[in-house]
């Protein structure tokens, strides 16, 4: 378990290099999510997005990026909401060890 000092007040990792799959499980648990392969698929995509665009996606960009990379069925708000209820971009980024999206409204 990574100590709480490694997270900011919103529960996002302070140092992105602290992230690994075990840390992801730990963060997901605090969000009440048990990670399944369908979650991991999105988490990997989020990390790829961050590498490609040097930023965390807001919801709109995440939906479109999923559609482009995983097909139209998964590029839908409702699908992402089913995996990361409430705010998929924000919670997905948190579990993926990425910074909070700037424009998370």
């Amino acid at each position, binding site marked *: 378990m990574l100590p709480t000092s490694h997270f900011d007040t919103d529960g996002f990792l302070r140092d992105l290099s602290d992230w690994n799959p075990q840390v992801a499980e730990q963060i997901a648990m605090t969000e009440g999510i048990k990670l399944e392969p369908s979650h991991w698929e999105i988490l990997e995509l989020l990390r790829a997005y961050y590498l490609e665009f040097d930023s965390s996606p807001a*919801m709109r960009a995440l939906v479109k990026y999923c559609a482009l990379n995983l097909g139209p069925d998964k590029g839908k708000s409702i699908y992402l909401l089913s995996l990361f209820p409430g705010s998929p971009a924000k919670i997905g980024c948190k579990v993926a060890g990425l910074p909070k999206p700037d424009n998370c409204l």
Partner: protein
Amino acid sequence: MLVVIRHSPYGSSLAKASLDVVLAAAAFEQNIALLFLGDGVLQLIPHQESSALGKKNIGRQLASLPLYDIDSVYVDAEAAARYNIDLTTSPVDTQSISTGEIHQLMTEFDHILGF
């Protein structure tokens, strides 16, 4: 809304500020276009690598604009030519416009926001 971008990517925090505004406005489904004017064209140089400065990569962030459905990106052709920037390799697809067309473009929008 037309966002006019006139400064280099890392010489000030203006480039980052403009991106913040553009992406926030996109979240509200506003009709947004960007115009890179004068030194602003320097943000379109490919292969920027800003991590050693501790700054976010403006070029790569610009590459995400289509994912926010921002597809109207205009460039001051004269400035790009002056800096010898090959726009076919820039991080985001752009439309080159002449000096004469810039004024016309600016009058087509209800609001102009300059950075």
